[in-house]
């Protein structure tokens, strides 16, 4: 890093805040609406359309705002027997881990503007991929803490399920990326995106890894069809003793993790911020805007696909999920890695 000048620090702080508060929170809020509306339309229903401001409903877009107001003004009911420090810390850790991952995603490349090079990636880091995977794995601490500190057996059961599920899927997540990272020869998101811009998208060279990562990614977000840490009819879940905004933070965490997983898929398999046929880094500020637009579009398209999968597939049983992760996805991804190693060895 060439000198931490004040304007560089300010730019980095601005980028991180923009990624988390503008990109992350807005899309997470929007996902609440998408979740309702997309499921409704594909099930021949209308969906939530009653929240209005002065009679304007705007296709139910005010429902996330109503949700936020409800959660912020709700009583923060706290049962007896909770372990206060961890109980309060758990949602912060769960959400913070997701938010941190967002800040490490490559929203864009380096743009030349006003005689300087501006990187559009909030946290410019040469080990971006392991950083994101580690931070994503850190989220499981929030889940376990929530279940343990709430002093409820149901919460603990949900937390144990969550821990087992997230470890299983994290392993698959990392191992399915091994092959594609070997081809790129880097752990840096930025270089991976540049490689894809120069050659082909990762999904072309590693289609199996894409499917495996998508599966493991869907499992790591704890959303249906893998929403086993929370079972409304059996154990309610690790956040059973939470209410108000603390529960809302767990809710947002799921959306945040979905965004992160989609961001990783977009940057490692779908070419990141590149647009085929356009040399974006040479186009200045316009190129920067196009980078952001391209990356956002890919993330939103993937979120749309994940949301559709979430509303199409029935829920997995817990043993089915563990079988899927440990006995199918993990061996397949290791085989994929071995084949990739062989291929790269022959190719070089």
């Amino acid at each position, binding site marked *: 890093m060439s000198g931490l000048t004040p304007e560089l620090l300010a730019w980095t702080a601005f980028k991180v805040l923009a990624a988390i508060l503008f990109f992350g929170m807005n899309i997470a809020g929007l996902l609440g609406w998408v979740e309702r509306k*997309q499921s*409704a*339309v*594909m*099930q*021949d*229903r*209308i969906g939530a359309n009653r929240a209005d401001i002065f009679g304007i409903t705007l296709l139910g877009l005010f429902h996330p705002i109503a949700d936020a107001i409800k959660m912020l003004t709700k009583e923060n009911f706290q049962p007896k027997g909770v372990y206060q420090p961890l109980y309060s810390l758990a949602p912060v850790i769960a959400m913070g881990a997701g938010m941190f991952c967002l800040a490490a995603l490559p929203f864009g490349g380096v743009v030349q503007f006003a005689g300087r090079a501006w990187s559009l990636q909030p946290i410019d880091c040469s080990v971006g991929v392991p950083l994101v995977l580690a931070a994503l794995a850190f989220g499981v601490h929030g889940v376990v803490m929530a279940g343990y500190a709430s002093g409820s057996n149901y919460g603990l059961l949900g937390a144990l399920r969550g821990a087992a599920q997230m470890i299983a899927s994290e392993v698959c997540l990392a191992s399915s990326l091994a092959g594609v990272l070997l081809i790129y020869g880097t752990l840096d998101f930025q270089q991976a995106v540049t490689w894809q811009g120069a050659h082909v998208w990762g999904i072309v060279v590693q289609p199996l890894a894409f*499917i495996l990562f998508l599966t493991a990614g869907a499992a790591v977000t704890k959303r249906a069809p893998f929403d086993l840490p929370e079972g409304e009819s059996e154990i309610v879940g690790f956040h059973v003793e939470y209410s108000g905004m603390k529960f809302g933070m767990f809710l947002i965490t799921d959306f945040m993790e979905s965004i992160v997983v989609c961001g990783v898929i977009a940057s490692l398999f779908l070419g990141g911020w590149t647009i085929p046929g356009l040399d974006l880094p040479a186009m200045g500020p316009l190129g920067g805007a196009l980078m952001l637009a391209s990356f956002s579009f890919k993330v939103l398209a993937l979120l749309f696909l994940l949301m*559709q*999968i979430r*509303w*199409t*597939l029935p829920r997995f049983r817990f043993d089915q999920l563990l079988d899927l992760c440990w006995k199918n996805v993990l061996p397949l991804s290791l085989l994929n890695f071995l084949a990739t190693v062989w291929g790269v060895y022959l190719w070089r």
Partner: protein
Amino acid sequence: MTVKVVERPRRTFATQIYIVEVWKGLAITFRHLFVNLYRHVLHRANASVTIQYPEDPAVLGHRARTRHRLLKRDDGSPRCTACLLCETICPAKCIRITAENAPDVLVEKRAKTFDIDLGMCIFCGYCVEACPVDAIHMDANDVAITSYSRKDMIWNMAELMGDKKKPASTPDA
């Protein structure tokens, strides 16, 4: 009579790897999504099956049993002859009839008052079955019968015949 043996669908390798099945399921839901979106954009009526009840009228089945209705003769007098069969058969005991002499000697008897407590009614339809003169029906197709008090759930004869509109119930009544 022949017994048709249905073969249980086999789990083949193609279904076991699940990817193909996931794609088939996604094809169905994507088709519904896009077809419905297209219809929504064009404001077609068949875009969804949702009935937005308070704004749109409730759609009831042909055989739905709803609020009672007392029928009249051609001359406008009530058909009810106060035989009390409906009151007798009512399992919920929600019908209360008092009888009086009818001016028409052929009819002999008629209802002076006819109250149905809809708060107690179980909508079994026995009163309709029991009535020998076809005076009571359960086809008013009115499902908005809620009120703020138990007292307001009692409908009297004029209201059941449609001569008088039931006054709206208020919270403090």
